[in-house]
């Protein structure tokens, strides 16, 4: 009984902190992005990809909190959320797609810059037109694992703080997909929220020099 209460309380704390701190971190990253644009006159694509990735995650965190802890979300949205090509799966797929795009940008593989985005949009159109969604899960797993591995590889090779931060963030968020133990997944949520706060405040700097892009 006490264990159940502890777990549900931990779940609420994890979801609430996720719904509060990740949007705040996104706002901080957005401000940095705009400041950078003001100074240089153009968007820093790597900052933009990181911001979009966090924005995507913020929206998901807010909806998840509202869905699990409040009666505010109508049932049809709940259905849309958990469908095969629903909001949750699409959101994770967008994040791994952005992860791959980030790798291609950092490594300056120009021909591949938009390839992950084209592949994902193609899959989305295929689903809208034919109802075929069998590739989404496989794509998410393959692209997710590939993007995490490449992000670590790129981060160590280029000594890039952004890539390393995203790699750690992706590892934590992506691992939740495969963990069924409630306690472990709540602890992971709290730890990635803590990491996001540290990262967005610019305190995570294992490498002193920034990579110019």
């Amino acid at each position, binding site marked *: 009984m006490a264990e159940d209460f502890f777990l549900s309380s931990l779940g609420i704390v994890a979801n609430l902190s996720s719904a509060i701190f990740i949007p705040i971190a996104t706002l901080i990253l957005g401000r940095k992005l705009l400041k950078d644009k003001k100074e240089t006159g153009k968007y820093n694509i790597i900052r933009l990809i990181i911001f979009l990735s966090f924005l995507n995650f913020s929206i998901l965190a807010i909806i998840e909190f509202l869905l699990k802890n409040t009666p505010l979300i109508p049932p049809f949205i709940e259905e849309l959320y958990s469908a095969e090509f629903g909001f949750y799966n699409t959101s994770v797929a967008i994040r791994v797609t952005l992860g791959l795009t980030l790798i291609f940008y950092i490594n300056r593989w120009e*021909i591949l810059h938009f390839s992950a985005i*084209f592949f994902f949009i193609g899959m989305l159109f295929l689903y809208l037109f034919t109802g075929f969604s069998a590739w989404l899960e496989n794509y998410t797993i393959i692209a997710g694992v590939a993007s995490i591995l490449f992000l670590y590889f790129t981060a160590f090779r280029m000594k890039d703080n952004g890539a390393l931060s995203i790699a750690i963030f992706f590892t934590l968020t992506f691992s939740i997909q495969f963990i069924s133990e409630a306690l472990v997944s709540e602890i992971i949520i709290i730890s990635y929220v803590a990491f996001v706060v540290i990262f967005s405040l610019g305190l995570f700097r294992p490498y002193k020099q920034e990579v110019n892009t």
Partner: protein
Amino acid sequence: MAEIGFLFMELVYFTMGLMTVFTTLKQWKINKNRMLIAVSIYVAAVLVTSIIDISIYLFDFDIDILIAGGLTIGMILGFILFTIQLEFMFYLKDLPKLYTLPFFASFYLAFGKVLVDSTIPFIIYAMIVSYGSAYFLIKDGRKSRNGLAIGMGLFFLIWGLGQTFQLETIIISFRIVAMVALLLGTRGFYEKYVFVNVEEEQKIMGTWIAKLVVKE
């Protein structure tokens, strides 16, 4: 009898295509312009499909053989041609970031055709590729006074227009007209006869005025 007529028209189209390839390659040897080699590759790809068409008229080949679902061999050839056409466009516009787009678009459209037997997505794609390419090439060609770009633009435009009628006679006739437009582009016709050389005109006008002034 109609088949012989189509065969003759296809042979005319093929011969003009060969002439275009030879002209562009000859010019490429002289000025090493990368656009010429890209045009040669594209026209060569068009000629490969023309050879298939000639074989159809000669030996009664059936390219509407189903591979899976609603996907036929003819449609795969169409996708290959559109992929080359789009790649050609992105190459000319120097957009390497978009090089993978035609492959994914063709792949998903082909796979969609396997799942759902509808030609609507293929037609929309074909229209976007043909008219989009034609628009950009003619616009760029006019701006830079490049006859070859105008020729290619007209080729895509007329070729695309012909495809929309879905009538064999019209398709082949439009294809021949399209190839003539391209051939003229490779031979410098548009630079010579279509674009007005402003400097040259002003020179002539200047000489005229000078002569009149001297007379007076």
